[in-house]
């Protein structure tokens, strides 16, 4: 072990000890915050996966990804508006709508993201790296503008169609919603892991990420593989947007900027390009935000998140789990 490694472990150890002290001091409060942190983190993880996949394959920081996430919530609330869903109590119609809303919105977002890739990134694939970065920022503003014109600047209501069941276990208050968010996110991440590791297309993606030219020589259709990456990234962001809307009940057009920034941080934190890293990074950032809000104060949360990021990067420049994809 090298010196930076020791620094890293000392840093982690201190954080864990501080948290354990709080956990012993007021266990209920700690457990309650843990619930909030896990739900937040699960959503960040879904968005972070999109960042990390795209970075892994074409080394582009896709700034528009956070806005794809927000747009999916906008699409979702519009589609839900077509049905006479019942807010407040769970009906058979709610269940039916819930089952169809996920695939429909996810597919729509996948299509939109593939179109974004085709228009804004593919023509610039061999351009200097700064060029697609700028089009990504431009695409982000474009999507925000679309949402602004579509629904206006005020917050947009997302129908609350989940069962209202809540319970208190040992003083910790949680409901169906919390379980729903965590379980759905976990299922999606598991499906993604299966897809990347066990399918032909997943293998093609890994190969393209490793060496694009060699992959092409082996007969892999690069354009199709990259488009598939954007498609899958948007599926996850789309699900994330719906989950966010269902859980928080309110979205607004600028939401993607902040969520995207934090999810991107989570991806870097876990080791950008590394898929399990992004999922774990998202969870840790969500927990950090929740614990910082309660133990340190809301005004310091952003400082704490980025402070930890700096700390991790100083001691472990490749992120928590390291980059599994070699840098070119």
């Amino acid at each position, binding site marked *: 072990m090298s010196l930076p490694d020791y620094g890293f472990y000392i840093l982690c150890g201190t954080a864990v000890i501080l948290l354990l002290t709080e956990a012993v001091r007021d266990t209920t*409060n700690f457990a*309650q*915050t843990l619930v*909030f*942190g896990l739900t*937040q983190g699960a959503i960040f993880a879904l968005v972070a996966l999109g960042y990390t996949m795209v970075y892994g394959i074409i080394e582009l920081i896709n700034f528009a990804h956070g806005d794809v996430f927000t747009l999916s919530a906008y699409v979702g609330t519009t589609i839900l508006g077509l049905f006479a869903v019942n*807010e*407040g109590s769970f009906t058979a119609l709610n269940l039916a709508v819930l089952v169809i809303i996920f695939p429909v919105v996810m597919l729509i977002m996948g299509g939109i993201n593939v179109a974004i890739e085709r228009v804004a990134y593919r023509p610039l694939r061999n351009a200097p790296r700064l060029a697609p970065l700028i089009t990504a920022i431009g695409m982000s503003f474009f999507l925000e503008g679309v949402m*602004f014109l579509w629904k*206006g*600047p*005020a*917050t947009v*209501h997302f129908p*609350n169609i989940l069962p209202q069941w*809540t319970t*208190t276990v040992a003083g910790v*208050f949680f*409901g169906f*919603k919390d379980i729903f968010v965590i379980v759905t996110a976990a299922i999606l991440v598991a499906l993604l892991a299966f897809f990347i590791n066990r399918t032909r297309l997943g293998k093609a993606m890994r190969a393209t990420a490793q060496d694009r030219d060699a992959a092409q020589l082996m007969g892999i259709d690069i354009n199709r593989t990259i488009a598939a990456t954007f498609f899958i990234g948007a599926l996850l962001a789309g699900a994330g947007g719906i989950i966010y809307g269902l859980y*928080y*009940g*309110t*979205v*607004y*057009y*600028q*939401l993607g*900027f*902040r*969520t995207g920034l934090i999810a991107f941080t989570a991806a870097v934190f876990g080791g950008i390009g590394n898929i399990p890293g992004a999922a774990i990074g998202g969870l840790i950032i969500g927990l950090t*935000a*929740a*614990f910082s*809000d*309660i*133990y340190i*104060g*809301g*005004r310091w*949360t*952003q400082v704490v998140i980025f402070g930890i990021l700096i700390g991790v990067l100083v001691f472990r420049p490749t992120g928590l789990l390291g980059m599994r994809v070699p840098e070119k």
Partner: protein
Amino acid sequence: MVRARGLVVLSMALMVAFACGGSSPGTSGSKGTIKIGSDFPVCTTGGQSTSNGVKFAVDQKNAAGGVEGFKIVYQSFDDCRQGSYNADAGVANVRQMLDDSAFMGMIGPYNSAVAKAEIPIAAPKNFVMISPANTNPCLTKDIPSCSTAYHPQDLRGSNPNNYWRVVTTDDYQGPAMADYMFKQANIKTVAILDDSTVFGVGISGAFEAEFKKLGGTVVKHQEYKKDQQGTQFQSLLQSMRTASALYVGGTDDQNICIPRAQMKQIGWTAPFGGGDGIETTDCIDQASGNETGILATSAGADATQVPGAKDTIAKFRQAFTGANDFGGYTMQAYDAANILMTAIGNAIKSNGGSMPTRKQVRDAMAKITTFQGVIGNYGFDQNGDTTLKIVSIYEVKTGLSDADVKSSTGVCGKKLANACFVWKTQFDFATSS
């Protein structure tokens, strides 16, 4: 709504035609036009409904023959950028008005932070500003709590005062809610959340000071920034939930009412109160699922509680039929516009019936000591503050009948049209202190 407006314009045109044809020459429009502007965030329902009040007053005045033979042209400026108020946009609007010599004054702005940026450029030009909604005390008063912020003299320099307002200030608004919670609702511990804006910090500070003075305990005072917090407030709320009520200092465009919805999500049932920044339609929508019982103050008498205003409100409702056309500051804006037009009229008279200068309008405005408005009879002190020190308290009631909705403030949810702010009580600081 479009059709209704068309009708108004048509009837107005008819009335003007009658006025011109019927009476002797020298009525409306014959001497020329005088412009007045307004600067509100009209992208929000609050800003738009306030602008409606000005438009209604000007339309009425023109229909009655204008001001001393001059026709008033009203132009509404928007200080929204990216969906919420922006001081730079407000400054650009005021510059635009200053560049056009026909503008004799303006109504607005809506937000204190915008006023802070606009007064310094309007004051040297003697450009009259009358705000129907600014409540930050430091804009007009030199009180100790302003020492860390700014003073009126920093804003206007050595120029005479050019800024008036028809609402009272946060140093009454915050304490009014503190008095209500402590004395009437019997709440002894509160937590405070503010949105880190000029308004939010000011009003929550005033609330905190008064609540402590009364003997209450402030468990925690947290703040957040919209662009950093997103909509995730649960852990912030968790850190405050030992309190028996939550006071929020902020405005709906900073998402200040989303915590109300999330209080339910974390199982915290407690009263939720705030300033005039939450007495809005968007606030009710943000609190979706937990609207009932939101408490809000408004820095003025409630127009629906003033007997003389009933008639004006009814007429307004005929002219503006949209559900969200009437807001918490519509009648304040109506009064402010009439005060400005009165000052312009006085200035014309003292100028021998011809077009006055901005300086003359400002001087005439400074001389107005009593005014009979729809929100009461009041005057202004030398700082530009209203002598009316009334703060109203409103509460959101849900499941109202259509008749109840009509008799409420008219500030109702967009999603839930039968959830409205209903007048609860008022505090008059002019008599009590």
